[in-house]
């Protein structure tokens, strides 16, 4: 019988996180304070983060010990299995071996608790009693809720109202874990009240929700704020994924040619890839690919188009040109990793040419996700579908090039709580093609009466 899963025993779980900052080939520019123009110091962040996490944010040590109480909680679902996707390989019919880290094994169903647990622990150790955060559709909010429950912290989550109304299950998960989940804008904060006074039925936005969460934390000595992505310490905590994968692959004497992850804020991508990026920096040959969202229909593009044209990502995504686009400032036009809250570490690695960014549209990602579900069984989270689309593309490349490849990717979460997204896809609710003039006219007419922004 062929081996499908590679597992680690509890006592083989990594005892340290890996800090890529110690191995960066070129230094990263320090973030500057918008008020003073000087590099951000620990005291600037102290109103929202405990000092033990701020220290991790700026740490340059290569290895950072994982505290025992964090390991104890990790062991509830970690080490996660490394699984070979034999059925998907057969479906693709390409000369590839596909391995994935199954992060859907955590109680909330994603990789997010890897940092939520650590952040809850460090806040508790610092004497904090309540954490606040914002959440869109609830993936991060639910992970932090579980972590706070495990460490006896209060948790307050400001959830963008449009998601709060559309997506009841994650807020019910949060409530089950004892969190107070509040639709944002709310009357709990000055920021929320201001919006509500102008527009009582506002659907909210991430910007409003984050304002509320920060305001909730600032000025209360017992409260702090928690962020589930982007920041250095978040990526640090996620490296437990890649460190486990490293050990698991070594057990079967396999090393990947390509390492892939989906990249929204960058934490799950970085979690798997950074230990392998370290190998690459030290001379190992492999490709590291970040799959991110685009919206352009596959039909309008060539087989390997839509990668960024240069490592500095100054080249606009192609669809703009295919649509006869004339001029837009680059800040809007490029729209890639730099521009939607990507982790600075990941952006820096892309800029250095160590990581490659590729974009996939919503239809091809869901198409890939459905294929995955029908062959491997697990229904992927919609975000995970991006990397599955990248795997499909990489397998197609291997077939065209006649090269055997080992692909490793991060299956960042299952989609059982996001089935409405599949409903939207399967029922054709998501925009699937370039709209005809008639469709555009009809669609825009339906919102013509709305107030101008």
């Amino acid at each position: 019988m062929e081996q499908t899963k590679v597992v680690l025993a509890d006592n083989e779980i990594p005892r340290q996180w890996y800090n890529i900052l110690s191995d960066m080939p070129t230094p990263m520019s320090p973030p500057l304070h918008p008020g003073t123009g000087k590099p951000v110091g620990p005291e600037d962040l102290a109103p929202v983060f405990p000092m033990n996490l701020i220290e991790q944010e700026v740490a340059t040590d290569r290895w950072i010990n994982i505290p025992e109480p964090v390991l104890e909680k990790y062991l509830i679902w970690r080490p996660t299995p490394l699984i070979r996707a034999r059925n998907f390989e057969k479906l693709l019919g390409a000369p590839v071996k596909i391995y994935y880290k199954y992060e859907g094994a955590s109680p909330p169903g994603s990789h997010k608790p890897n940092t939520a647990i650590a952040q809850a622990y460090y806040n508790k150790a610092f004497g904090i009693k309540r954490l606040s955060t914002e959440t869109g559709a609830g993936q991060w909010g639910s992970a932090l809720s579980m972590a706070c429950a495990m460490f006896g912290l209060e948790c307050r989550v400001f959830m963008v109202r449009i998601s709060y109304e559309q997506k009841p299950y994650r807020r019910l998960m949060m409530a089950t874990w004892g969190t107070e989940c509040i639709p944002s804008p709310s009357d709990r904060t000055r920021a929320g009240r201001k919006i509500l006074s102008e527009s009582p039925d506002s659907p909210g936005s991430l910007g409003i929700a984050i304002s509320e969460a920060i305001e909730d934390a600032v000025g209360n000595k017992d409260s702090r704020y928690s962020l589930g992505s982007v920041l250095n310490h978040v990526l640090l905590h996620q490296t437990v994924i890649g460190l486990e994968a490293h050990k698991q692959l070594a057990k079967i004497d396999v090393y990947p040619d390509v390492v892939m992850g989906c990249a929204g804020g960058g934490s799950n991508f970085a979690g798997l890839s950074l230990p392998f990026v370290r190998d690459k920096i030290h001379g190992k040959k492999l490709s590291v690919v970040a799959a991110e969202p685009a919206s352009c229909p596959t039909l309008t593009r060539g087989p390997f188009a839509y990668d960024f044209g240069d490592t500095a990502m100054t080249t606009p995504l192609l669809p703009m040109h295919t649509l006869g686009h004339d001029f837009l400032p680059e800040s809007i036009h490029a729209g890639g990793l730099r521009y939607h809250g990507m982790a600075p570490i990941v952006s820096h690695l892309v800029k250095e040419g160590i990581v490659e960014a590729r974009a996939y549209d919503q239809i091809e990602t869901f198409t890939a996700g459905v294929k995955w579900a029908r062959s491997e069984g697990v229904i992927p989270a919609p975000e995970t579908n991006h990397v599955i689309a990248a795997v499909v593309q990489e397998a197609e490349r291997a077939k065209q090039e006649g090269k055997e490849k080992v692909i490793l990717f991060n299956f960042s979460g299952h989609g059982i709580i996001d089935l409405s997204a599949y409903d939207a896809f399967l029922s054709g609710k998501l925009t699937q093609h370039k709209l005809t003039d008639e469709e555009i006219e009809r669609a825009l007419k339906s919102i013509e009466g709305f107030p101008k922004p």
Partner: protein
Amino acid sequence: MISSEQCSKTSEGLWIRCPRLGGEAPFTYCMQEAGDLPCHRIIVCWQAFFPVEAYLRKKLSPQKWDEFADKKPKEKITSLLELIEEAKSKGDEE
């Protein structure tokens, strides 16, 4: 600003999966995502489906269009620091 109810009334042809929200969102949501301005990703997300840039140029006042076009999304840490300062100053006022 549009209402939550108006959002949900958007025509079926104008929904997209919002990569920032992690859920499905109508075009009307994207139009107000940044308060009095559209989301900075609106053109990246929608241009493939219809000429959203032309639509925005028509819909927004020239001043708002310039504001939208010139606005660069901030690094997360910069946004956090601004919000911290804002929250602190509001606290001081009370």
